[in-house]
């Protein structure tokens, strides 16, 4: 990919994959605080990626 180019759809796909992975990890770690709490923080960071990218990708299709 050339500099200054980005593909929002592709970014969003990667974000959703990360979210799914982090959520699965979080849910599997009920008895493992080190994993669950770090996964919580990762999910908070992923939410920031969603605010930055995922929230805007479908705007053109909205009235």
């Amino acid at each position, binding site marked *: 990919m050339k500099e*200054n180019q*980005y593909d*929002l759809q592709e970014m969003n796909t990667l974000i959703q994959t990360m979210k799914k992975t982090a959520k699965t990890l979080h849910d599997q770690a009920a008895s493992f605080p080190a994993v669950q709490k770090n996964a*919580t*923080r990762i*999910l*908070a*960071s992923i*939410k*920031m990626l969603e*605010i*930055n*990218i995922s*929230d*805007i990708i479908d*705007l*053109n299709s*909205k009235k």
Partner: protein
Amino acid sequence: MSNQSPFWNPALETLPYENVRKLQLEKFKRIFSWAYKHSRFHKILYENVGIKPDDIRSFDDITRIPTVEKAMMRDIQGKDPFPYGDALCVPLEEVTAYRQTSGTTGQPVYQPDTWQDWEWWAECWAQLLWAQGYRPKDRVFIPFGYNVFVAFWAGHYGAEKIGCEVVPGGVLDTRGRILKIQELQATAMMGTPTYMLGMADTAVNEMKIDPADLTIDKITCAGEPGASIPSTKQRITEAWGAKVYDHAGATEIGAWSFECQEQPGGMHVNDAFFLVEIKDLETAAIITEPGIKGKMIITALDRQAQPCIRFDSKDIIEWDSEQCSCGRTSRLIKGGVLGRTDDITKVKGVLFAPSSVEDVVRGIHDLGNDYELQLENINDRDVLTLQVEVLKDSEDRIDEIKSKLSDQLRLKTNLQYNIEFCQYGHLPRYQVKAKRFKDLRRTKT
């Protein structure tokens, strides 16, 4: 390299404005539903006027939603879930940070945040600092007493998120902070306009250090409107030899507005994260056109633990008719935050904004940075008394300065003042937010 991008988020910050509005509406629906579902306070507030989440389809629908005032938040705190009350939308165990408002206008309001909220605070700050030219190469000194007030906490984390090296100047006194800036060659700093001027004053008068000789090249101001008041901005700029940027935020709202490097004479609203509405002070209609002052009603579109939905901030703002040349599509508010409805008052029948006095005082080079303004009712007449400090080198020209000050005040505010000159160093110095205007008509019985 991403460090060369002029935008923190090149997609969001240059989004066509019609899409920004679509985004705001979608996000408003989301936060409204969240609050309705998870907070008893919000549900009752909206049920009382018969509004449910599905009723929100347009910006007109949003204008029918009741506003929330700070006093309402004060009323619920101290109750369960303790200490926040029933505006809390998450279980207490998900709250990771406590902050409170500064208490400038009364009993402080408690503010809970989850870790996600804290990430969001830092995200808002990262975007504004990036717009002001902060980059990973910067060493950012933060001269604020890290405590229960949110102040520059989020600025610290926002700068870290960018990748800056952050130096917390918390427990140091003013002299210690100046020496640390000198020792580490810090390049940027954050503080209230009052404290930035106070630090410069200490450096010059007590330490014989010219702050302009230090390495600070940019300063982000917040907490007071000073950095958008031209004469105050100029004084800070000259004192530190640095570019001075304004930013507006609040504990219960978030970091909602900022000046960019272009400094177009106003501040950008972070439209993607906040919905700012301006309400006419007399008709209560929503003002969409530029050039008309009103009070800000604001919604933080992504804040989770204690949502901020149509909060009556009491800040006076107006839309700018111009678009900023920086390329951001967000709207500008002209001249920054122009005042507060709880400060703006009628004096002798004239609408009076105390911040206009600051611009006059700091525009006269014979006067110090500090002043005090008092309004009393004596024999049924409003009397304004302004105390100013005259600089030592100008003490022999008091009459000339008084005449100049009096004329400029009359021109700017249409009012007359009793002017009292004090020796330099006589008036109170403030470290955080200065409270220079006292309306004693309200407190005397």
